[in-house]
């Protein structure tokens, strides 16, 4: 295989652009902050900017994994931010009232699953468009979270709970391990079984999938339940990291970041095809962008302008219409030479 076709295959790979963007960002960081890639061990724990990116990005990656499955079915879930807030608020409220960790975590996760089930049923049974079905919980959910916390920020002091989002296990931040396990389980369940195929069939055309004998409705409900579960655990992580629950601000805008991560990873919002690796890359791009802006000393208030620029650039690169426009121009320049003698050409 020659280098030209290898390069062509590389550029053609679905993950080429997300990886390139991430690498460019990390390189830019090394220029700004020389020791950026260093990872050191202190008191048996791993420290470093890269670990920080993974640690702070853990809830987003988790939410984005759930979002990927929903988007793969052709849906979207706007309520994950509200679920994050409700889950954190419930867990902290129960712990502050003297309940044990298993009760608190179990209730929070259980309620998150129920919220996912509610979304799934609205989409499948009532036939409501996903964006609107989940908008209901997005609007009401944050109110519910504030109702649980009484409009206050609940602070707790439970070192066991601290482990989930801010603790270390085997020298690694526990949140990273949790995300790695969730990712591995999801990957194995979807890619080693026919689940991915079924979900993609549903996302491609739910009615056609149903007619071929796939239980579309069940699969769609499953995707929303899984998304709710992921958001619930992410809510535990976020509240555990600060040992507090803030019904108003916990997980604010995380639904947009998660959708963005999925899109940056190359999954189309129309559904029918998904890439878990792409989603993780997308979430890492978002988190790295945040960290880059922070470490490079760019005022945080301009973060959004950079986010907008990156979103626009990555989406344009991935837009087939945008690429077609440029490749067509490239191809047009070396116009095929007009044959001087048509008959000779035919004979040849």
């Amino acid at each position, binding site marked *: 295989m020659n280098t030209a076709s290898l390069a062509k295959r590389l550029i053609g790979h679905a993950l080429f652009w997300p990886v390139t963007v991430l690498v460019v960002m990390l390189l830019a960081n090394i220029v700004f902050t020389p020791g950026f890639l260093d990872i050191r061990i202190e008191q048996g724990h791993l420290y470093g900017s890269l670990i920080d990116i993974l640690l702070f990005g853990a809830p987003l990656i988790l939410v984005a994994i759930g979002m990927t499955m929903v988007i793969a079915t052709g849906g*979207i879930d706007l309520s994950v931010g509200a679920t994050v807030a409700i889950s954190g608020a419930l867990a902290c409220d129960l712990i502050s009232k003297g309940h044990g960790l298993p009760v608190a975590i179990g209730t929070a996760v259980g309620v998150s699953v129920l919220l996912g089930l509610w979304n799934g049923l*609205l*989409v*499948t049974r*009532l*036939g*409501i*468009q996903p*964006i*609107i*079905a989940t*908008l*209901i*919980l*997005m*609007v*009401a*959910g*944050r*109110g*519910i979270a*504030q*109702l649980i916390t009484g*409009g206050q920020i609940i602070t707790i002091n439970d070192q066991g709970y601290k482990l989930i989002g801010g603790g270390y296990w085997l020298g690694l931040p526990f949140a990273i391990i949790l995300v790695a396990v969730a990712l591995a389980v999801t990957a194995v369940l979807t890619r080693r079984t026919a689940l991915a195929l079924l979900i993609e069939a549903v996302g491609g055309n*739910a*009615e056609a999938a*149903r007619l071929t004998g796939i239980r*579309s*409705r069940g699969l*769609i409900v499953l995707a929303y339940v899984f998304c709710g579960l992921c958001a619930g655990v992410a809510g535990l992580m976020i509240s555990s990291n600060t040992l507090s629950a803030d*019904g108003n601000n916990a997980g604010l805008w995380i639904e*947009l970041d998660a*959708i*963005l991560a999925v*899109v940056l990873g190359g999954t189309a*919002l*129309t559904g029918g095809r998904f890439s878990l690796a792409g989603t993780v890359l997308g979430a890492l791009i978002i988190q790295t962008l945040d960290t880059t802006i922070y470490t490079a000393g760019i005022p945080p*208030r*301009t*973060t*959004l*302008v*950079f*986010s*907008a*620029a990156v*979103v*626009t650039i990555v*989406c*344009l690169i991935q*837009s*087939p*219409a*945008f690429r077609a426009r440029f490749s067509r121009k490239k191809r047009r320049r070396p116009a095929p030479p007009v044959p001087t003698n048509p008959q000779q050409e035919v004979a040849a």
Partner: protein
Amino acid sequence: MTAFVLRRAAPFALGRRHVPVLVTLGLFVLAFAIGAVRYENFGSAQVFLDLFIDNAFLIVVALGMTFVILTGGIDLSVGSVVALSGMLCAIGTMKLGLPAPLVIAGVLVIGTLFGAGMGYVIHAFQVQPFIATLAGMFLARGICLTLSENQISIDDGFFDAVALNSLPLPGENRLSWGAVVSLVAVAVVVYVLQWTRTGRNVYAVGGSEQSAVLMGLPAARTKIQVYAISGFCSALGGVLFALYTLSGDPTHALGMELDAIAAVVIGGTVLTGGSGYAIGSVLGVLVLGVIKTILSFEGTLSSWWTRIAIGVLLFGFIALQRLIASRRKATTPV
């Protein structure tokens, strides 16, 4: 002549497609009546007029959103553009010392171009509206914060004069000039959607873009147009918001896109596009407004109950829409 009158009056004739709007109207009347029975002073004309005064900006923003949703799109940038417009009003008059009418005209042009830019990206590069307008939302809010992190008070002769005076109405009632502007906007939008070619194109593209193209309607231009209109309405909403608060603030109107989308949906416009009315969106805003008024009269209820109430209402309306739609079409999706 009779035929002419009938044709002109046709949009007023009531049919099944008006049911969602009528339900919203009924709900608004019911909520207002409950408030009037429950609280003293609630049933006065001024409380009713205050709904328009306090929500003038949201009415205008929801009108723009109605255009976008009628084509089957969505515009997440409206809240940020409202904030940006308010900031530009404050900076233009207070920091640059420019005359207010010039600043307002500039803000409206910037808002329109911003919307048109998003519309162009959506159309030309087939970027999903959700993502393109999300980038627009980040961009506008980011520019706000870059311009200033703090609130800027507006103390300009023109703004003060417009904000502090109001239109006197019979019975010692009053209507702010901002509310008057929003009512004019409602009239213009109703006219454009019901009686102009642009309005017909919007409904056609939302109904089925492919069919619209095959019929020779300018689908591309219409799609860019609706985002430009939404941008204009957001900018106008921002000017009204600046008038209402006499300030520009980078954190103004956070999440207003959701209020606008909720108002449009409560007003009976279907999110897949092609069906709905501007008047419905206005009623949607009034329903949200009357809930907030009731909760503020109640006094003891906290702000989160507003969110829960809006969520429950949204659910009720969407379920109702589905019921009506499924009766019309016996096919069930999925």
